[in-house]
Each structure stands twice: as structure tokens, then as C-alpha cells.
């Protein structure tokens, strides 16, 4: 019974596949999986938007939306209807074709990443050997759509936002990649499936997730920060920067195209948190050995939603960075730390079992963090700073 619950969606897919002639079975299976992905993530997007609005409200001691339906639960429906019925305005001098294509390219690129993400036991659409590479390739191509949107709008704010977005995404792609390279080093594979398998064993009832190692924790923290910057989340929301450049690259978008950008942004967030969960938090594996009977997909989506909640929490806490702070942080702190983390992971690999590698690796990671934080703060490159004219 529990086995069936775990494999519920796989069995469902196989059952539908059994209904069609043999020649059509493979195609049917793929279409079913794609439809499932395209149905599930926008639903989660609606949920996440509601969660974000309510959560941010509570953090600011407000109620948040509570008018549409019981406890404001139908707010996403109202938002959806609103954006669908709004007029689609295209600027007179805009590059119409590129302006039209940009949101589509974004949505397609962010959804492509889910093709290789294992969302449960046996629940992966394409079992690719280099799936990590594929996810990063797809993640990087969202930059193109952002720049398309900014350039084609023929608006100074859009262009500024697009420039900021591209600069930020390229800068943070480096630490994002380098922080996940440690996982590749440890598992010896680029396949996300294999990475989950490598973390799916327990000792003393606790899982062997990579986040519970010194290099894994360091990599995890770096990954979270870089993921926030990649998805343009606060405090790295300079490309949007409502108070500075209105909405950045999607200033000139309205109606459904705006909704597509919004959707793309959130689905991209799900994608990157799904990747982070797979790399560091054991993917669909249970957090304790005695909880392995709970269906694997519940763990995966639960972890992703927890990650999203953390993003919301951070958004409710931190103010926006300035462009030079952003760049300083990426190149003068994140990059050296991730490079050092590669070294630490290598040390861990070649020091063998025992407490010594724990002590040495922890000491190196913590020491480097403290040292770099201190020097960076003393030089005023990172950390809090005083503003001569603002205070």
C-alpha cells in the first residue's frame, strides 16, 4: 500500500500508457509527464505567491490578503483573472517580435530544467547522464530572455534593468556552479539521480546528506546565496528594483505577458530550489530513517516549499544591495570561498575516514570565513558600511 503511494504517479502513468496501442505508449508517457510538470508548478506558483504575500504581511505585522474567499485563499485566482483580462500594451517603438518572444523564451527555459530533476523515486522525465550540466545550461539561457525583454522594450529603465540582470546573473553563475562542483567531485557523476542515490543511506537513523559535512554546509550556504542572486530575489533584486527602476526589464510588459514573467521568475525559483534540494538536501530522501515510509515526492516538494519559505523570510528581512556591494560580494567573497571549498572537498576525499578530516575541514572552512569576513569588512568591501551623506 505504502509502496503504491510512493509510486502513485508512476503507476498512474503506466496505467494510462497501457490504454493506448503499443506504438503510442512512449509518446503518451512523455506527454503525460510534461503535462504533469506544467500543471503542478504553476499551481505551486499560485500557492507560493499567496504564501509570500501572507508571510511578508505577517513579518510586517499586517494581515496580508484576506478578502477573496476564506482567509484570502482565492487571491491567486483573482490575480490570475485580473492579469488575463488586462490590456496588453506594446510600446509604439518597441521591437514587436522580440518583445513578444522574451516572456515565452523565459518560461520555456525555466520549465526545461524540470525535465531532469528527480522529483521522487523513479520520477524523472529524462534520465540524462549529464543532467546537472543540462540544468545549468537551461538556467543560464534565462539571461537571454531577460536581455531580450530589456532591449526590445526601448525604455531606459528596461535597459538598465536588463544590464543589471545580465551583470548580476553572470557574476553569480560562477559561485553557483563552483559550489555545486564539490558534489560532482564527491559523487563522481553529473547525474542528479546518482547524486540522490549517493545521499540515500542512513547511519544511526540520520541521513548522509551532503549538507551535514563541512564542505557540504559551506557549499550549501554559497549555493543559497548564489541561487537568490540568480533568481533575482531580494536582497539581490536590483534588476527589478521597484523603487529605483520601476520594474526593470519588464517595465513595459502588461497583462498576460507580465504574468508570464512573474510565472517564469517563480518557476525558476522552484527549479533552482529543486536543484539545491537534490544536491545538498538529499533530494527525495527522508530526513530520518524511520520516516522512509512517507512517499518520496512528499519529501521533495516539502523541501522545495521550505526553501521557498526561507526565500520569503529573507525577502522580508533584508534591504536591497547596491550594485558595487553586489559585485564586491560575488567576486571578492563568494568566488574565493567556493574555490577554497573545492580544496576542502578534495582534502575530505583523500584524508580517509575518521574524526581528523572533520576537524581539519571544519577548521579550514570556518577559519577562512572568519578571516575573509574580517579583512573584507575592514577594507569596507563587504559587510555593513556607513554612508557619508545619508546619515
Amino acid at each position: 500500500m505504502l509502496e503504491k503511494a510512493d509510486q502513485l504517479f508512476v503507476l498512474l502513468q503506466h496505467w494510462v500508457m497501457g490504454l493506448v496501442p503499443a506504438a503510442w505508449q512512449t509518446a503518451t508517457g512523455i506527454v503525460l509527464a510534461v503535462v504533469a510538470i506544467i500543471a503542478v508548478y504553476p499551481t505551486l506558483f499560485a500557492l507560493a505567491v499567496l504564501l509570500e504575500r501572507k508571510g511578508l504581511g505577517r513579518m510586517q505585522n499586517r494581515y496580508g490578503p484576506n478578502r477573496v474567499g476564506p482567509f484570502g485563499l482565492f487571491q491567486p485566482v483573482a490575480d490570475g483573472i485580473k492579469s488575463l483580462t488586462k490590456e496588453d500594451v506594446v510600446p509604439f517603438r518597441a521591437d514587436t517580435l522580440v518583445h513578444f518572444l522574451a516572456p515565452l523564451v523565459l518560461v520555456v527555459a525555466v520549465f526545461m530544467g524540470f525535465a531532469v530533476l528527480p522529483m521522487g523515486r523513479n520520477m524523472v522525465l529524462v534520465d540524462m547522464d549529464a543532467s546537472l550540466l543540462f540544468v545549468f545550461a537551461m538556467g543560464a539561457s534565462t539571461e537571454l530572455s531577460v536581455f531580450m525583454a530589456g532591449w526590445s522594450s526601448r525604455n531606459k529603465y528596461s535597459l538598465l534593468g536588463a544590464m543589471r540582470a545580465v551583470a548580476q546573473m553572470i557574476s553569480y553563475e560562477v559561485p553557483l556552479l563552483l559550489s555545486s562542483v564539490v558534489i560532482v567531485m564527491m559523487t563522481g557523476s553529473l547525474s542528479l539521480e546518482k547524486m540522490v542515490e549517493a545521499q540515500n543511506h542512513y547511519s544511526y537513523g540520520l541521513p548522509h546528506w551532503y549538507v551535514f559535512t563541512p564542505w557540504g554546509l559551506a557549499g550549501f550556504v554559497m549555493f543559497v546565496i548564489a541561487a537568490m542572486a540568480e533568481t533575482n530575489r531580494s536582497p539581490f533584486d536590483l534588476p527589478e528594483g521597484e523603487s529605483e527602476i520601476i520594474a526593470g526589464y519588464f517595465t513595459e510588459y502588461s497583462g498576460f505577458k507580465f504574468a508570464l514573467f512573474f510565472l517564469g521568475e517563480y518557476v525558476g525559483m522552484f527549479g533552482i530550489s529543486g536543484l539545491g534540494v537534490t544536491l545538498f538536501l538529499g533530494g527525495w530522501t527522508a530526513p530520518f530513517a524511520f520516516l522512509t515510509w512517507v512517499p518520496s515526492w512528499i519529501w521533495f516538494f516539502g523541501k522545495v516549499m521550505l526553501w521557498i519559505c526561507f526565500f520569503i523570510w529573507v525577502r522580508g528581512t533584508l534591504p536591497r544591495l547596491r550594485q558595487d556591494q553586489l559585485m564586491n560580494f560575488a567576486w571578492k567573497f563568494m568566488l574565493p570561498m567556493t574555490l577554497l571549498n573545492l580544496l576542502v572537498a578534495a582534502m575530505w576525499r583523500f584524508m580517509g575516514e575518521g574524526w581528523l578530516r572533520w576537524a581539519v575541514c571544519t577548521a579550514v572552512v570556518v577559519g577562512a570565513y572568519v578571516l575573509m569576513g574580517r579583512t573584507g569588512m575592514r577594507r569596507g568591501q563587504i559587510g555593513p558600511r556607513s554612508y557619508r551623506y545619508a546619515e
Partner: protein
Amino acid sequence: MLGEGILKGLAETAKNFAGSYVSKERLTTVQYPEERVAPIEASRVFPFLVYDGGDWQAGLRCVACQICEKECPPKCIYIEKSKDKKPDYVGKPQIYPARFDIDVSVCMSCQICVEVCPFEAIKMDTEFELATDDRFGGLLRSRDQLAKSNEYYHGIHPTEAAEVDARLAEEKAKVEAKAKAAAEAAAAKAAAEPATPAAKPAGGESK
């Protein structure tokens, strides 16, 4: 240490988040259509016309002098004088506004009409729910919608209304004393010169 401030900030927002579910004092939001706060005495939104007594048409203080119409910066007051006259609060016959309209969509709540009115006839209201689905007729508030009793005025701005009443009573007393003195003088004059008819001042007063 680096990151210390971020952790402190995260703890603060977490405290807010959890606290908003526990303590009601944290949530200062007034859920407007169901809950309301009493209007603040000094608040002002839109002008209204004060009337004394029970009948608004008889008791309207406005004498259609059109000072407010001329002083109004966005020119949102429209007044038409009446042809006939009616007695005001001291009993002196005055013309009254046959038409008195204020455009809600134009009024900027500056209170200049109130400052310039020599008859204490126009005052600021605290009612703010003036939205309407009829953007032509509904936004132009006419005389009968604008007229509100002196009791209402006492209800929304008690101190100001008390001052106004005191001032009006003083003025009325002064006018009455003056009339009395004039009547006495006239009577004395009439007594001194019995040849002239005594009905003359009385006739002038009634006209």
C-alpha cells in the same frame, strides 16, 4: 563577524511573524468596512452647509454672498442667488442660495471657504465615503445633500462648534441690544415729536 546582522534581522522578522499570530496588539490594521475608528476631531474632508433648527431650508445660515465661490482655489463651488428673501438667525431678511453645488472631484479640502465665510455657514465635514458610480451627477453635491444640522456639527467638531455658537450668540445679543436701543431711541423720538407717525420704524423692520 560577517553575517551577524543578517541573523539578527532574521530573528527579528521571525519574532514578528510568530508574534502576529499570538498577540492582537501587534496587528494595528483596522479592517475597514467592518471595523471603523471614530473620526478625529481635527480631521476635514469636504465642506457642508450648517443650518439651525429643524428645517434645513428655513435654517440655512448661508446668505449666498458668493465669497466662498470667488475664493475657492479650484473653483468647485457653484452658487445661484434666490430672488426672494428669508429671515436669518437674527431675524434680518437675507437672500439665500437657490442653488449651492460643490464638486467632490474638484474640491481639494483646503478649507479656504470655511476661513472666508463671514456667516459661519460653511464648515468642514469628516465624512469621507463620497465615492459614487455616477461620475456626473453623483460627484456634484447639491444644497440638500450639503445641508447638515448644527447638532451634527457639534457632534463632529465639538470645540469648534461651541466657539462658533458663542460667537453667534454674542453677535445676536449685540444686534438685539442695538435694535432695542434703536427702538427706544425711536420711541423717545416719537414721544418727543407726536406729529410723526409711530408705525414707520416697525414697517421698515417687517419689510
